[in-house]
């Protein structure tokens, strides 16, 4: 049996609130520093302490980032899931388990590494035994995979940034794990980690922090938020960065942060800030968007620059708050009653989280409308690889704001809602300026902003609004295309599926077919997507929801003659997508349609 190098999945079963999180991050980071493209997914429960949590680390020289189809190395710490965790393992899986649970392991077909982690932890620090036990398994794994201790030390140091005591205890625990493996166990598996060239530019970061930084560099002036998983850490990250990056020389803040009483208030504050000329935003998840729906329509109709980030969790309703899904995309596109249409930015990695973080404000002010950022728990809360964020390459776009009498005089027959440029985007003046004031309102108004219920005025205003948003199609982030010259099968996908797409592609191509990819990065859809579809024989729209929401949008919007090419592959079970499952669903779909 040959060595299996840098190609395996580790599943660590613990309970939340037991301190396993930092141990897992250290292990992930050490693997990452080995240059192995390691990635981690945290499957945590919707409570604070005591419920089952799994941390899944994928190591892959192919750069695959999705959780693997099966577990190669299982670490069993949690008595509550013990039986199931062990039952589900395939033969020959490595099982590292805490013997102090005193629970049985009756599988003979596994590679067993029993370790008295509790006892060992207590020896090192009786008070922190529970926490320390987690570092024991890190040491075991490191030794087993041959990860050098100095790399582990680096990861420990990074995790505890300067806290000497913590570094010392964790280091000691990891060494004791290593020693136990060397002295008490015999390596019976064939998994190894080999050092690869490590791109020094690389680092790991989660999408929420990346968006937060994007906002910071996007000139955010006000964050209003109401806590909700998985968006809270986005808000908390902005809160943490403002004092570091957004104070003036006197230590005064250029960004207000308001914990709202609920989502209705949070979005109201965003509108207020946008109306008064500042850059306001809020972040939330599905239930929050539902609550915000009424004011989302107000922003659309009064044409107030507004930004909302939806870090999606599993719906409908309260759903699975700590699991991931792309279930809100159709709602975002048309949220609120009446005829509405919103701009939605859809980053597919952390670099784009940063980029769209600042661009969202520019689009919002340029188009004077509601702009959504759409991510999900997987992209928002798990660590993804970045090689560094690009500093914004354009100045802030503050849109069509008239600041002086002269500005206004340059415009013939100024009116707040008069389309002088023919692009549907009209000029505004800000409160406080005294220039051409109007009463902004969600009710009918004419081109001068004066109340009106006239039918022709209403209709032409609505047509202008449509034109305005239509105009953004070629201006928003265009799709990322990776095309095979055969133009056989094209997969249209978006968002966090990016982490899995290459592996899906490889699985499909292993069957002999040629697969192109088109990643949608914004709504309304770019015409380039239409062209991509036209160029390809058949198209799969791949997404992480039940109803094929993007498929629905495409089917409505693409040229009629292209519709027959589209096929939907969509499902969601709350977990980050596994390549093999989606690949198999695609194959099944292709077969069903005999295409």
């Amino acid at each position, binding site marked *: 049996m040959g060595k299996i190098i840098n190609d395996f999945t580790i599943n660590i079963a613990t309970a939340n609130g037991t301190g396993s999180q930092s141990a897992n991050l250290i292990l992930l980071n050490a693997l990452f520093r080995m240059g192995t493209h390691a990635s981690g997914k945290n499957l945590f429960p919707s409570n604070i302490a005591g419920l089952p949590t799994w941390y899944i680390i994928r190591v892959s020289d192919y750069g695959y980032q999705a959780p693997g189809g099966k577990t190669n190395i299982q670490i069993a710490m949690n008595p509550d899931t013990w039986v199931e965790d062990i039952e589900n393992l395939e033969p020959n899986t490595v099982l590292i388990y805490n013997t102090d649970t005193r629970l049985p392991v009756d599988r003979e077909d596994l590679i067993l590494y029993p370790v008295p982690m509790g006892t060992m932890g207590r020896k090192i620090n009786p008070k922190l035994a529970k926490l320390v036990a987690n570092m024991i398994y890190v040491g075991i794994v490191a030794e087993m995979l041959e990860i050098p201790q100095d790399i582990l030390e680096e990861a420990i140091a990074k995790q505890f940034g300067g806290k000497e005591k913590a570094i010392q205890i964790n280091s000691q625990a990891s060494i004791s794990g290593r020693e136990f493996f060397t002295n008490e166990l015999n390596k019976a598996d064939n998994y190894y980690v080999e050092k690869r060239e490590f791109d020094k530019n690389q680092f790991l970061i989660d999408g929420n922090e990346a968006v937060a930084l994007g906002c910071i*560099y996007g000139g955010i002036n006000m964050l209003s938020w109401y806590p909700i998983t998985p968006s809270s850490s986005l808000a908390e990250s902005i809160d943490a960065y403002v004092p570091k990056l*957004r104070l003036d020389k006197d230590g005064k803040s250029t960004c207000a942060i308001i914990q709202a009483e609920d989502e209705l*208030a949070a979005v*109201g504050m965003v509108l207020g800030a946008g109306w008064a000329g500042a850059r306001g935003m809020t972040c939330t998840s599905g239930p929050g968007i539902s609550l915000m729906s009424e004011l989302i329509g107000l922003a659309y109709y009064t044409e107030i620059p507004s930004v909302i980030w939806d870090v999606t969790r599993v719906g409908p309703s309260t759903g699975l708050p700590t699991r991931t899904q792309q279930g809100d995309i159709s709602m975002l596109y048309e949220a609120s009653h009446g005829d509405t249409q919103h701009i939605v930015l859809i980053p597919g990695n952390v670099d784009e989280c940063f980029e769209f973080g600042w661009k969202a404000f520019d689009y919002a002010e340029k188009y004077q409308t509601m702009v959504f950022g759409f991510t999900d728990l997987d992209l928002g809360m798990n660590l993804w690889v970045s090689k560094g964020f690009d500093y914004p390459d354009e100045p802030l776009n503050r849109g069509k704001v008239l600041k002086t009498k002269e500005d206004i005089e340059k415009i013939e027959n100024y009116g707040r809602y008069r389309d002088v440029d023919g692009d549907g985007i009209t000029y505004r003046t800000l409160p406080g300026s*005294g220039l051409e004031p109007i*009463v902004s309102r*969600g009710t009918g108004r004419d081109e001068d902003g004066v109340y009106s219920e006239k039918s022709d005025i209403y209709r032409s205003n609505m047509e202008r609004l449509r034109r305005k948003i239509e105009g953004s199609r070629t201006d928003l982030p265009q799709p990322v295309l990776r095309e095979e010259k055969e133009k056989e099968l094209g997969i249209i996908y978006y968002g966090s599926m990016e982490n899995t797409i290459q592996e899906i592609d490889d699985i499909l191509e292993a069957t002999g077919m040629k697969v192109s990819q088109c990643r949608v990065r914004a709504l309304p859809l770019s015409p380039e997507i239409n062209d991509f579809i036209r160029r390809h024989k058949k198209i799969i729209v791949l997404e992480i929801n039940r109803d094929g929401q993007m498929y629905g949008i495409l089917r409505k919007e693409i040229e009629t003659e292209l519709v027959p090419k589209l096929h939907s592959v969509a499902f969601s079970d709350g977990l980050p997508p596994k390549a093999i499952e989606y690949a198999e669903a695609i194959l099944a779909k292709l077969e069903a349609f005999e295409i």
Partner: protein
Amino acid sequence: MPRVNKINQPLDSYKGGKSTLCPGCGHDAISNVIIKAAWENSIAPEGIAKMSGIGCSSKTPAYFLQQSHGFNTAHGRMPSVTTGANVANKNLNFLAVSGDGDTASIGIGQFIHAIRRNLNMLYIVENNGVYGLTKGQYSATAEEGSRKRKGAPNELKQIDLCAMAINLGCSFVARSFSGSRKQLTALIRAGMSHRGMAIIDVISPCVTFNNNEESYKSLQYVKNNNEELHGLDYIPHFNPIQEIEVPSGGYKEVKLHDGSYLRLETISEEHDVGSKKMALDALREAEEKDKHVTGLLYFEEGIPTLDETENLVDTPLSELPEELLRPNKKSLDDLLTKFRA
């Protein structure tokens, strides 16, 4: 030449569009007082932001201060929109109008939380005990037993917005009546001068749906049952106090943030506007007698406002230059270096 105020503006500069409310509606009377008060206070109209929700009352910002920007938001959401606008541009003078439906029903949560944050604004509730614009259903401020033009008497207890505001720590709480022009003018002028949240709950009869005898919020009922806490005079900061004639009765003065004074002329027993307890007692006693007590109920100075708590830069956020909005490239490079460490 028309008369002008200290900043050389005629009264006309403070007027608005033609009202579309029912002739005689209390809300129109309040609009007129607002026009007058703003003019007399010599506030630059362009510095004012008019905020409202939805309702007959919330329409009125179109009928005053045509030179000010305004935002007629959504039903019950004026406080949150004002909050955002407030931190966006703390130099704006927020003058907000809401209705009892807008504030006490759908908007009660935002009302409460705006008070907690102590927004720097004047919040006028045009309180008629009914939903005017949707044709006269009882609102949550209708008194138990009060009866509108059609239908059965109101069965539920009223929410007293003044009592609630005082309990929540609001620093300027007053009740008035659209028919008490003098008192209302003084209060609105003072509310504009106050730093922090000033709430004035103005009983404002709905002549179409709730102006019958059996209504506790009808014009006639309020006229007959209005107990004024004190006579009120507002002395602007630009009129040195000695110039004002001292009234014969006893009086007390409340100094406002911008240096203006509100002079309270004692009417009957003394009411200490610095005492929550007295304010709440006065409200409770009036309620027990089915009376309305009007005047400045409670006043407190120096509570930090939201923009202060937020420790914002001096320039309004809406006017910051790009340098202050986007940290420089080096800061990002440093951060990335740290991430890569």
